[in-house]
């Protein structure tokens, strides 16, 4: 793409995004809002997987932490806690009093802070424990998958505290405003859109900074970086922490759009599906992560309701085809012969060449 074309496309995308509530119908808008929320998480995957070479099969966990942090507040809003009021599912489960860790979530600002901090800090701490011992690559991917499994089973089994299999749903107001109206839905959409744009430009800056160069250096040769006197661990931990925080933000926004957060959204299968959005869109190109998320999810929406079994075959095929034949994703197709597409092919062919030598 030439210089000018690139900016025309970007401007058109932003303009459409901002005016979408006036262009498409409320149902489509709600889908677009959800998928844009997911694309915030996808940009985080682009950061860790594409730029840092860290494959996480557990992003659903951080997505869930963000979603639940907000949903816990939404379940408490409007309840009179002093009176002993409790969320409906706790009453049904026969809980006698609101568990202590629920109390602070009555405060909306505490909840909003948790949406970012809990998944971000947890992701950073978790990855630090693994990376500091120089465990990475395939091992890390498998450990994150075990994390996704443990997290979703725990959510389901602790019914009385988490809402169990059904998750947290059925909420109506935030800051005293009814969030179920069509009018509110527009504003939630705009907030989501604003986050997408802000995160996009933040990550652009980050990847262009010296940090971004160090991160790619770490991906290219962790030991080489180490023997140049740098400690690679903090660069990786920061990337994973940011991706965790972005997943949390995405989770909270998704919860607002969907009106529900449940274990079905955070387990092993959804976690790995998140990676395929980025694989399809392009793991080294930010807009590719957004485009891939929208594309795969709209396709899923169209196909899975009509032909559920076809969708699973399609999804499986998508995994195989995308990584085998389109390693730089759809976005890579726009830059043939230079940039990411070629770089990816280079990295990917590296090991084969070195064994042939």
């Amino acid at each position, binding site marked *: 793409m030439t210089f000018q074309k690139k900016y025309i496309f970007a401007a058109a995308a932003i303009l459409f995004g901002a005016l979408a509530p006036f262009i498409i119908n409320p149902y489509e808008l709600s889908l677009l809002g959800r998928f844009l929320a997911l694309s915030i998480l996808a940009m985080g995957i682009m950061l860790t997987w594409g730029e840092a070479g860290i494959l996480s099969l557990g992003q659903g966990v951080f997505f869930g932490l963000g979603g639940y942090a907000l949903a816990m507040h939404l379940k408490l809003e409007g309840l009179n806690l002093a009176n002993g009021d409790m969320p409906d599912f706790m009453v049904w489960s026969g809980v006698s009093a609101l568990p202590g860790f629920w109390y602070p979530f009555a405060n909306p600002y505490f909840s909003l802070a948790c949406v970012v901090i809990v998944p971000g800090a947890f992701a950073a701490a978790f990855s630090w424990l693994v990376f500091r011992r120089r465990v990475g690559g395939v091992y890390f991917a498998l450990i994150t998958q075990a994390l996704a499994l443990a997290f979703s089973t725990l959510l389901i089994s602790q019914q009385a505290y988490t809402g169990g299999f059904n998750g947290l749903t059925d909420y109506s107001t935030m800051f005293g405003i009814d969030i179920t109206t069509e009018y509110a839905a527009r504003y939630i959409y705009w907030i989501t859109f604003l986050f997408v744009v802000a995160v996009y430009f933040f990550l652009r800056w980050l990847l262009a900074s010296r940090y971004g*160069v160090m991160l790619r250096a770490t991906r290219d040769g962790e030991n080489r970086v180490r023997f140049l006197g740098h400690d690679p661990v903090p660069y990786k931990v920061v990337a994973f922490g940011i991706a965790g925080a972005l997943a949390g933000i995405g989770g909270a926004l998704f919860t607002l759009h969907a009106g529900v957060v449940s274990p079905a959204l955070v387990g092993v299968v959804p976690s790995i599906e998140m990676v395929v959005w980025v694989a399809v869109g392009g793991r080294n190109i930010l807009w590719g992560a957004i485009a891939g998320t929208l594309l795969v999810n709209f396709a899923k929406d169209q196909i899975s309701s009509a032909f559920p079994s076809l969708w699973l075959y399609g999804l499986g095929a998508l995994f195989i085809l995308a990584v085998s034949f389109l390693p730089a994703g759809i976005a890579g197709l726009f830059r043939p012969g230079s940039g990411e597409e070629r770089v990816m092919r280079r990295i990917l062919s590296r090991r084969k060449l070195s064994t042939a030598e």
Partner: protein
Amino acid sequence: MNAIPAPILMMENVTVDFDGFKALTDVSLNLTPGDLRILIGPNGAGKSTLCDTIIGRVRPTSGKIIFKDQVITNLPEQEIVRRGICRKFQTPGVLPTLTVFENLLVAGRKNRAWYRSFTTKTPPAETARAEEILTQIGLEDRRNIIAADLAHGEKQWLEIGMVVATDADLLLLDEPTAGMGPTDTQRTAQLILSLLGRHAVLVIDHDMSFVEALNGYVTVLHQGQILAEGTVAEIRADAQVTAVYLGRAEDAEPAHA
């Protein structure tokens, strides 16, 4: 040079034992600041292990390593680099998706704290030094190419440039001419000679034409032990060395492995 300066690196009776296999036995070695040392020896003599031991990839079973009057035997790898020892590996260790210039900038960062990396500005001094090294290694016209696209010899030079960019006082160059033709080999020798004075350099190589072009003080390693030390001419004349190494290398032509 009349007075002999204090050694920059001293290895004292270093032994490395890999589960019963002695890769190095009682090796002692002194390196002079700003000076060149060439380490030769047949395959499996322990040359790479010696480098690994200095930079902390392999820990000695006994003995100690003193760098600038401080014991570094058990420091973490990146700390050893920060004290001023940097190594070039046998297979080129450039960062393939970064440009040539970015490779040098990563190597040349003065303040290596991670939290100082959240900026798009490179200190002018670091940029200037990277440009200087770029010229020294002769890759000015490759500045913005990704390192994966370099020719094999160019990668070797870039990695030497990266090692230089760390501004380490001691550079360990493990087979810098591996896979190079005669012209590139001579160029590499000139490049290494231009580094002396500012850096002490320890070169490992098999190629005798390269060793002769460098013409420095030679240490011969054999079966994990130091067999002989001396100038290139002295080593050439040493009957023992000829027996275990040079003779064989000349019979069986390929010196590269």
